[in-house]
């Protein structure tokens, strides 16, 4: 039974998604469609990692994404002594804080690269803030959000473009 329901759901959501005037962000629900029906590009959006000029990374998995600070940012901050995690349910727009990372005596805001709703903060950092120094772009993620518009992620910097902004200085 369950598998039948699962099989039907994509079709239902497809019908639903197509009824309203097709949004410009039609890429957003792409992952919900049965494979092949609506692929816009050869590289699927699932599992995309992007960067911001303010040194955050975001890694998309479906419509969820993890956010953290880049290795470069972690290095230039030095030893992280405290991480402020966002509250679950917090709604953020792009560029709004989803937490803060404190080192020595600087507290740096962590800004959400895209709009979304916070699903969780990384509790590991509550006890061990230095995880950010050890693994800024892995274990040291800061927040997981449900992304409002997946297309917004795509517009961010890719790794090469980000590294270029870092090298300028």
């Amino acid at each position, binding site marked *: 039974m369950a598998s039948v329901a699962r099989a039907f759901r994509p079709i239902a959501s497809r019908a639903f998604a197509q009824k309203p005037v097709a949004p410009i962000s039609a890429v957003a629900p792409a992952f919900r469609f049965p494979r092949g029906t609506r692929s816009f590009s050869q590289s699927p959006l699932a599992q995309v990692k992007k960067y911001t*000029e*303010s040194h955050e990374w975001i890694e998309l998995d479906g419509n969820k994404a993890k956010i953290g600070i880049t290795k470069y940012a972690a290095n*230039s*901050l*030095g030893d992280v002594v*405290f991480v*402020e*995690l*966002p*509250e679950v349910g*917090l709604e953020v727009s792009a*560029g709004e*804080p*989803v*937490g*803060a990372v*404190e*080192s*020595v*005596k*600087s*507290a*740096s*805001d962590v*800004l959400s690269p895209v709009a979304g709703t916070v699903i969780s903060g990384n509790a590991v950092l509550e006890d061990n803030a230095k995880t950010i120094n050890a693994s800024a772009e892995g274990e040291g993620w800061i927040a997981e959000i449900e992304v409002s518009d997946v297309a917004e992620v795509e*517009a961010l910097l890719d790794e090469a473009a980000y590294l270029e902004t870092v090298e300028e*200085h």
Partner: protein
Amino acid sequence: MRLAHLHLPHTTPFARVSELQQALTTRFLTHKKLAGSISSQTQPIVPGNAPPPDPTIITFSPNPVYTTGRRDLPPSNTCPYSESNNISLPLPLEPIRSLLVPSGPNHTPKAEYHPTLRGGQTTYHGPGQMVAYTILDLRRLGLTPRCHIRVLENSVIDILKQYEIRGFTTADPGVWVQDGSAEKKITAVGVHLRRNISSFGVGLNVTEEPMWFFKQIVACGLEGKEATSLQGLGVKDVGVDEVAERFVERFVERVNRDFTGEKINEVYSVQESDLLGSS
């Protein structure tokens, strides 16, 4: 690049300085946002089209105030000031509640309390202390967050040198001096960054006036460490105004000498009205 210096010669309410600082950081962030949206459209930024705001240092002494840093508060990144009117205090200030909350209609509290978003923990600011807040784009100056803290500390160490005092840094942040057999803290440091725009800065004790207030708390989470001041170390006839002037000079010197970013080639004085006028 030019650097603006706003010195507030009289004791100023902390909230007023906060407001000024907020107005300035907003201006920096707005500029960054605009410049960023232009560059993301891959159009060249027209030089001189919208010049970035000048880096600014505010020097002042507030009315007695205890401020807390981010670590002393529950997550609060959307609202730095709690609505509960001084009633709920962060843990480190609970022991001195009687100093902060009026106990009757005709009783004025001895000190204010302001939560802030800076790094570092609970500290005290007040008359007899030179507080310097640096509102700048670290990126433009070629400073990493860590270097910025070091510049702040080194600027203070350079001032101390002028008074023939040897200041140093330890594993604990801030600037320390040797007083007999004890290491004492003369300057606290705490900074907030958003998109590389810094705010807050240092508090350097000039006279002994702040000492009583420091004794009431465990400053910066450091148990058993004492504070001291220039006066406490034997410097005579020293005032906040003079130290403020020196801080800006030493800060500019340090930035220009130690870093490869854009140089500061002029310092000019501004008034409060200049900063609030054209936003």
